[in-house]
């Protein structure tokens, strides 16, 4: 019962699912996965900053429907900090080796635009999709049995292990250890021993128990996997996918206008 309620409440990343339902929470997991895959392909193919800027604006709007402003802000602040560090390091490299090609801030910006787009679409998927929806989606993909079982176990176990990590860190606090970046730097081996070893032991025990339980339940004797309920895509899912395709097509159009010579794939 406890595990079942956890199953409903937790997202695939181990965070608590936001209550209620914005647009993002009502979209089917397959739609969000498709948008995520489309985004990953689009950012690799496109190289024009204007095209990527358009996709960034759209992906930001998509992620903002989650309502997790602080997390989005923190992620984008991190990306901006990485951009500043890269810019500083590149500047130092150009001072040290003047023969290098001149530093162009716009070209340097492009990889970080890609990163920001991917962060937006991935956060939207990971923070709004419940584990149960993810498992149903996996089942509907009709993967081979030997791939489906470990994948389903993995998706299901990530939140459980995140909860285990919390327990382990609370235990360490009780014992007087303060695990932080400084502790990790000063005592890397002890940190590994304190954090990692209990997790591995719990995982090994859980794997054995769950494996035996699965065999006793007769898992694997069915001819094929049958989803408990058939999930159909709603009109809003089709609308979201069409909107994503239109945006990527507009990005490709902008890239064509700018030409493929500026670092595009073709």
């Amino acid at each position, binding site marked *: 019962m406890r595990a079942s309620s956890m199953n409903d409440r937790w997202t695939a990343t181990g965070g608590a699912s936001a209550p209620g339902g914005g647009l993002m929470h009502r979209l089917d997991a397959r739609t969000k996965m498709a948008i995520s*895959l489309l985004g990953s392909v689009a950012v690799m193919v496109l190289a024009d900053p204007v095209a990527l800027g358009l996709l960034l604006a759209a992906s930001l709007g998509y992620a903002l429907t989650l309502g997790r402003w602080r997390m989005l802000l923190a992620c984008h602040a991190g990306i901006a900090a990485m951009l500043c560090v890269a810019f500083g390091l590149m500047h130092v490299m150009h001072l040290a080796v003047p023969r290098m090609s001149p530093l162009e801030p716009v070209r340097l910006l492009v990889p970080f635009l890609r990163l920001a787009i991917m962060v937006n679409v991935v956060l939207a998927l990971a923070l709004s999709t419940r584990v149960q929806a993810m498992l149903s989606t996996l089942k509907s993909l009709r993967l081979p049995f*030997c791939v489906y079982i470990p994948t389903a176990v993995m998706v299901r176990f*990530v939140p459980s292990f995140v909860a285990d990590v919390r327990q382990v860190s609370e235990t360490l606090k009780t014992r007087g250890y303060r695990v932080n970046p400084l502790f*990790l730097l000063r005592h890397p081996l002890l940190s590994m021993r304190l954090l990692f070893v209990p997790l591995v032991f719990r995982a090994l025990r859980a794997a054995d128990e769950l494996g035996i339980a699965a065999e006793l339940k007769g898992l694997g004797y*069915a001819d094929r996997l049958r989803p408990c309920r058939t999930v159909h895509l709603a009109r809003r899912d089709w609308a979201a996918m069409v909107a994503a395709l239109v945006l990527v097509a507009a990005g490709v159009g902008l890239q064509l206008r700018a030409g493929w010579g500026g670092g595009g794939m073709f």
Partner: protein
Amino acid sequence: MKMTASAPGAPHLPVLEVPDAPAPPSALSPSAPPPSELSPSVRSGALRRAGARYWAVRELVTVGVFAALTKVSSLLVALVGGGMNPLTLMLKNLVFTVLALVLLFKLRKPGTLLLFTLVNVLVSMLLMGGGFFLLPSMLVAGLAAEGIILLLGGYRNELALVAGIACYDILFKAGSFGVSWLFVREQPELLWFTGVVVAIGYLGALAGLPVGLRFLRELRHAGIVHE
């Protein structure tokens, strides 16, 4: 059908959606007829399915649990130490190598590394989108590592397993470097930084081999991994 398994003090075992399966012919179920009373077609079908399956369910569950543990451990190390900290990069790779080594020593079945890789890639692809371009390089690395393990004596040979993991790590890192070129191709000088990151990661993975062997010694001592 839902399945739970829990014991006092055990980690809360989750609900796993089980395919709607007919119960296996088993003496554990009093209502089920013994295999001898089943019709020949049903009996042969069930036995054929059970016999033809290369992977036992228990092994598949172990692969899934280790794949989850790998993801969570990497996330934990990155959160505690910071993502771009060189020590964190080394530790993340060290943890991956140790876990992969423990998994191979626990299951000792050809194809384990490939399945572990496939599951990791699939989840990365579905949940993170970014794994899409890593798929070919990871699969090539997994296949090459499996080939090396078989060439060096198979899963019974400890040295073969260590060599296979080392080979997997270097091939996968080479693939990651190629993917990073796709990401930063407009400013190729950034590849120097990604190259340094990849090299530090590989050093961590190499360090993970002796650590993993030491860890395995402890697990054997505890009776968790058998000879």
